[in-house]
């Protein structure tokens, strides 16, 4: 069994640095999630409105964001807008902008799906029982929507965390970049470190995302 270089991570502060990189990625996704959830709910609600113009605008926004690979969006914001508008954007801010736009679109689609999945007779029965519009939403529609929505939005969070690995490509020093630095720095003493270090990165991503998607699966089963 050749030396696979996992021991490199236990030298000095290497493991801490790697976890610091993970925190950078997690911070970007956390901020984006916190902003995009309420925005997504708003846009999703707008998409179920009867006004055709509002719906069309939301639809166009949704389709444009969803058809482009996230990496292309990152490039457009990081390289494109900085050149066109002449401002200075750090990689982290650019990623937060992109992931917020993307998260809002995805969340809006989930909200829309959950809202239209409530059968019409729910609204009609509520009205027949004499509930006002506000009461209908508070007691009938929102509780049902939320139950369908929560597992799906938790899944969106794991997708967001996984996608933040892309920010490496616009120069943000996150876990993969730190891993590369560690491997480069120990090239002489531990030439096989690439295997061990990337394996650890792989496992760390798994350890972060797996419990979250398990929770989503559990809630989905429980609330069905």
């Amino acid at each position: 069994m050749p030396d696979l270089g996992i021991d490199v991570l236990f030298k000095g502060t290497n493991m801490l640095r790697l976890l610091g990189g993970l925190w950078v990625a997690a911070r970007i996704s956390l901020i984006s999630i916190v902003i995009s959830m309420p925005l997504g709910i708003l846009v999703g609600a707008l998409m179920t409105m009867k006004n055709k113009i509002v719906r069309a605008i939301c639809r166009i926004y949704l389709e444009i964001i969803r058809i482009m690979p996230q990496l292309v969006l990152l490039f457009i914001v990081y390289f494109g807008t900085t050149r066109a508008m002449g401002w200075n954007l750090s990689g982290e801010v650019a990623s937060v902008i992109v992931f917020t736009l993307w998260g809002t679109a995805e969340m809006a689609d989930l909200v829309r799906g959950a809202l239209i999945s409530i059968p019409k007779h729910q609204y009609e029965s509520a009205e027949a029982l004499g509930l006002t519009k506000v009461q209908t939403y508070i007691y009938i529609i929102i509780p049902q929507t939320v139950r369908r929505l929560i597992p799906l939005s938790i899944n969106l969070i794991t997708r967001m965390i996984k996608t933040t690995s892309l920010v490496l490509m616009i120069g943000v020093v996150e876990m993969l970049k730190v891993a590369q630095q560690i491997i480069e720095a120990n090239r002489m003493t531990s030439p096989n470190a690439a295997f061990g270090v990337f394996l650890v990165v792989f496992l760390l991503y798994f350890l972060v995302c797996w419990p979250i998607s398990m929770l989503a699966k559990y809630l989905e089963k429980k609330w069905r």
Partner: protein
Amino acid sequence: MNWEFIGKYLPLYERAAVLTVKIGLIGIAFAILVGLLCAAIQYYKVPVARQIVAVYVEISRNTPLLVQLFFIYYGFPKIGIRLTPEVCGVIGLAFLGGSYMAEAFRSGLESIEPIQKESAISLGMNHRQTFQYVILPQAISVSVPAFVANVIFLLKETSVFSAISLMDLMFTAKDLIGLYYKTTESLFLLVVFYLIILLPVSILGTLLERRVRYAGFGD
């Protein structure tokens, strides 16, 4: 916008787009194969293999493609497995896509109520006929939306191949930005080429979904 620049570097993008599509399609084809195999194993509840598939699905779905590619491209040579970037791309896409495809197919197969199978058998069909004429057509129409979504998702994921030095669209765009500082033009071409690849797939997918929605059984 400098159209001369665009005209000059169009062939470069064309070559990159062909490469992106080629690796994307081969990767997706393998992903479908892996997905079918995994779905079959889970559907027929093959012992041992079933547990392995379950672990594989969880690992593949909970890690980013970029990390998988880095591990395959930079990590594997250290244990003596040397692969070209193209092969790495295909393997990565198949590894990631396999689990997504497996889930799509499995959910289709599992959505068919046991009563369908029982009725078919009581009508005198054998197992092959039951599967071919009763289970499969219904399962396909249930899986199609997820399948189409996966194909688009995987085509979009090919954008990370530039990280393992494949000369794909992203790589070309980044190269041109770095070399000539023609950011607007390079990004414009990048978006146009991704639209050329992804829009037809998206539209075809929508049409296909409509076409197979004839089976409104149950509701």
